[in-house]
């Protein structure tokens, strides 16, 4: 599912003007994402109702979810809970999981990738093999199997997902380190007596940071989709926790009576992920504007 969001190198324009300030894409989508994050964090204060409360008057007499009305601005879901409140709360698990595991995956990826690229030899062979092998597993199913072992709590989901996703960062970092290692400033640093550790932390890692950040953003988007998929399969966030992916999954059989229950959480996911990926794209263009 999430394998489809991958970095696509866009066209290189040789005569692009130098840009030192971030571009409009970066700024606009940062504001969008920031708004989503702030709303999600403030959910306990701004949500009109308790998201888990089953309202006695939340369903029609025949048990159908209510449409929009002053008390429930977006109507209610199939259990008579306020849809708007659930929507405001529902970004929390996915945002928490995708950001935490992407940070964890990036840190592991940059350390292991640098080690593999810098030392080469058997260390490189072991790490690269491991990266290759982990990438060979069918992603969703592999994640499901691992989650089944450790039970699906949010912390476990974060650990399992970062254990899968560090490979993408590591592979990119390794490739970049391989080419950096040949450059003169590295030779100079060695000549000055820099220890391998100092070389890695002070000269190599800072130079791969841009690559890692761009990859980090993609990982956030991919993990977001994976988390939604795991929720759909019932091994992600557990009910009654409000979660966008889970909301879609649980309302699947009600699209006939109330399509909004499917539409709203889905749109929330799409807007968040578009914002995340566009921030990454904006960042990449911005940085290239400076460096080229």
């Amino acid at each position, binding site marked *: 599912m999430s394998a489809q969001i991958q970095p696509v190198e866009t*066209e290189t324009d040789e005569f692009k003007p130098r840009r030192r300030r971030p571009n409009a894409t970066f700024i606009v989508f940062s504001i969008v994402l920031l708004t989503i994050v702030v709303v999600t964090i403030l959910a306990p204060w701004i949500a009109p109702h308790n998201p888990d409360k089953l309202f006695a008057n939340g369903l029609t007499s025949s048990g159908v979810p209510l449409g929009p009305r002053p008390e429930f601005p977006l109507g209610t879901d199939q259990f008579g809970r306020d849809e708007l409140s659930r929507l405001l709360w529902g970004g929390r698990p996915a945002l928490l999981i995708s950001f935490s595991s992407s940070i964890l995956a990036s840190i592991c990826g940059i350390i292991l990738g640098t080690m593999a690229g810098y030392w080469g030899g058997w260390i490189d062979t072991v790490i690269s*093999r491991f990266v290759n092998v982990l990438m060979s597993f*069918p992603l969703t199913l592999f994640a499901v199997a691992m989650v089944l072992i450790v039970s699906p709590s949010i912390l476990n989901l974060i650990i399992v997902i970062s254990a899968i996703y560090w490979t993408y960062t590591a592979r990119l970092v390794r490739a970049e380190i391989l080419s950096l290692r040949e450059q003169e400033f590295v030779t100079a640093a060695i000549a000055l007596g820099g220890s391998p550790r100092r070389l890695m932390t002070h000269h190599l890692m800072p130079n791969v940071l841009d690559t890692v950040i761009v990859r980090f953003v993609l990982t956030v988007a991919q993990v977001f989709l994976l988390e939604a998929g795991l929720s759909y399969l019932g091994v992600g966030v557990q009910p009654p926790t409000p979660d966008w992916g889970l909301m879609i999954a649980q309302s699947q059989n009600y699209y006939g009576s109330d399509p909004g229950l499917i539409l709203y959480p889905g749109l929330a996911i799409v807007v968040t992920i578009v914002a995340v990926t566009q921030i990454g794209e904006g960042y990449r263009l911005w940085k290239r504007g400076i460096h080229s």
Partner: protein
Amino acid sequence: MIRFIARRLGWSLVDLLIVVSITFVLTYLLPGDPARTIAGPHATVADVLRIRRQLGLDLPLYQQYGRYLWNLLHLNLGTSIEYGTPVLATILSKFAATAELALTGVIFELILGLPLGIYSAKRRGGIVDRVSSAASLAAVAMPQFWIGILLLFAFAFKFGWFPLGGYGSPVVWYVFLPGLTLGIGGAAYYQQLIRSRILDVLPQQYITTARSKGLSEWQVMIRHVIPQVLTTLITQLGMDAGYFMAGVVVVETVFGWPGIGLQAWNAIKALDVPLIMGTVLFGAFWIIMANLLVDAVYGVLDPRIRVK
């Protein structure tokens, strides 16, 4: 060339061995005691112990690992707890449906993504480019199951053009929506990929030369630009095919498509560990094979790769 492929094949076998070792460990760690499950709720302790001995679960770990490898060498992936049938046969019985779905997915990726990518690059900044670029941006941001549910809602529920999931005849009618679901995300990615690759190639000097020879724009495209894009395309196609064959759990679950993905999902619900791990292994095998094939094709197309 043969040496390159042989070396690559050797590494694939190493990968496969590591994959198998990981699935062995996972099988060992997964919850659920197979002996107890097989014996049923009313079995005595002696029964459970007897079955455990039969399954070799009382042996030391390294002996179990040896048995596991030995069985795999004989294509024995164990017995499904739920169905009581050999795992490999159980998977293969559903494989045809998964292959049909994967093929449809790849076809949709190509017929949607390829023309849009080429045309967007050709008329960069035009209306087609802007609309399809925006659409692909949104499409890669959609959870697959959401796309599936929306398609079901629109084309099966509202208009009734397609069945509400399941499998039947004619297959084309049933496979259309799940295949489209699978293809949409991929098509969006292809549109971006092809577009950017072509835009990389277009400013190069040999394209100017080709134009100055008097070739028409479409001749330039077909003779000089597309071949450059081909390697990228083949790599991506191979990987996609591998992933799709590995079973698309989510899409198959949304549509109730009776492939290995849906079967794996049922196995997950029933905690049928041998069948889950068998499917994981089966999928990893496909992906490793697809990677091997892609590398071999790459080696043929681009001799520089072989020397490295």
